[in-house]
């Protein structure tokens, strides 16, 4: 099921990319234009998707139940961190995300999680922010 969906996705992606490449122009006075190489690549993607669709799909072991929650949790947790980063700053969004990940996907205890989150974020900010001089996003609270 997953493989069939993916193959369909390749076909759609290839078709869409081919159309966009077409609009960019294929050949010009001095050889290939912007669209030629992407068009060829898009055709290959589409073609491969079609051929794969005609074959027996794999049935991979997809995560269920607790495993699915863990994997989804990591993805959603990182998404929330990326969304919050420009507003809450690195320190807060990093610490909160780590805490949530440790508690849920990692199923660690409260004390351990809080300490590890704070220590990790503090160390990263020290190494990157102070030692290396990188500018990490700050929240409205100034850090």
């Amino acid at each position, binding site marked *: 099921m997953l493989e069939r969906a993916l193959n369909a996705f390749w076909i759609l992606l290839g078709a869409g*990319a081919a159309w966009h490449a077409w609009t960019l122009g294929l050949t010009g006075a001095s050889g290939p234009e912007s*669209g030629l190489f*992407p068009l060829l690549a898009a055709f290959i993607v589409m073609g491969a998707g079609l051929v794969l669709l005609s074959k027996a799909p794999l049935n991979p072991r997809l995560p269920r139940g607790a495993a699915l929650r863990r994997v989804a949790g990591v993805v959603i947790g990182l998404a929330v*961190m990326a969304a919050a980063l420009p507003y809450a700053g690195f320190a807060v969004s990093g610490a909160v*995300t780590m805490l949530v990940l440790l508690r849920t996907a*990692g199923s660690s205890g409260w004390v351990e999680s809080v300490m*590890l989150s704070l220590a990790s974020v503090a160390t*990263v900010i020290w190494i990157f922010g102070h030692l290396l*001089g990188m500018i990490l996003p700050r929240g409205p609270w100034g850090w």
Partner: protein
Amino acid sequence: MDPIGGLLGGFAVILTAQNLYLCLIGSVIGTLVGVLPGLGPLAALALLLPVTFTLPPVGGMVMLCSIFYGAMYGGSTTSVLLNIPGEAASVVTCLDGHQMARQGRAGAALGIAAMGSFIAGTIGVIVMTFFAPLIAAVAIRFGPPENFALMVLGLVCTLFMITGSTLKGVLMVALGFLFAAVGLDVVNGKERFTFGSVNLGAGIDLLSVVIGLFGLSEVLANVESLTKSSVLAERIRGLWPTLADWKAAWRPMLRGSGLGFLLGLVPGGGPVTASFMSYMLEKRISSHPERFGKGAVEGVAGPESANNAAVAGSIIPVLSLGIPGNPVTALLLGALIIQGVQPGPLFMTQRPELFWGIVASMYIGNVLLLVLNLPLVGLWAQLLRVPYRVLFPVVLLLCVVGSYSANKNVFDLWVMLAFGAGGYLLRKLEYDLAPFVIAFVLAPLLEQSLRQALVMSPDGAMILLQRPVTALLLAASAVLVALMLRRKNSPLGGGSP
């Protein structure tokens, strides 16, 4: 100035307390930068450039150069231990290095990587000492047609590298081309696949792709089967490579050194391309290619040597001609300029103490790095026994910072996330991710070179046959393709369709 005399002079300059200290600092920082996923030498050099303002030119340049090749030493550490590339040039080391770690042989993998890096780095500097101006004069003549032919060869080698389903591998290569096209078309400045987004207009950042595709997807796969007591390796079986390992590894190390050095010279080449090509070469000439991807020590020895040799190779055009071949050497050039030095053909004769000082420092730096890295192998291996449920959030945090560090743009985090989730799904469906990355790196160079070559040629495509080096490389590619097709048609066959 003769090489030996110059080199001795260089050592005289280097062997001062301050310069040695700076070499050491640079090596340590470089190793650290290499170890941290995502934070690559480019970002680190950019961050530390201001420090060189207060240093004398030799000291400043020594520090920066040692960060550059130090990162190549350190990059293998997270690749081997966590299957997360420390930076783009260490992606290939994940393939076999981590498998070795899973088998309890992390020490052997790290040891081979460190030793290979040392041998390659030293060979690179020796060649640099004696042949730098000659090599530079040849390398400068590499124009768009030669670059194109080289990229074609690289792409053909990529097709060789495909494990498992050939069709899926080809799809990944084509996909790599497509994603690489997102952004500005270099040849005419037009926007491609950007849909009005400024972020997409800048193109998709390689580092974020690599961290997501290999790092994040790896974490997701491990988290899926996480238990309270999961660790990456149950037992550490010995900390050092065995005699069998050395016997298997020494030839790949030499080959990797040669290949990496050559690829470092070419503009647009560099450690990333070198590591991939070396892996493909080793796999191709091995008598048991099926071992690759399951813990073959050649898959670690070759690439790790190649990326270090490529550093020496890429520094030659900068020091001998003042011409940078990739962003890191462009930064080194900028650093020299800020120091008031004018790199160019006369650099070696005008500022011999600086030129030879840098060269001498590379010898010393390589030794320092070996001394630094080997004893730490035992320490690093212990990381594998830390419960994964505690390890992975820290690793993710580092991946986030590393990915962000490239452009200070949150968009890169989304790229990392998208490729991470995508990579996770693709691995489940038995897609090989490495061809995607190599196509992603080679495609822009290939396309750009071909179009430039066609523009500058009065006879159109004939230029590809008129220039000897180009014709030679293209012929080699054709031969390889023929061999590949023949192999597939034989009863033994290639991969499954």
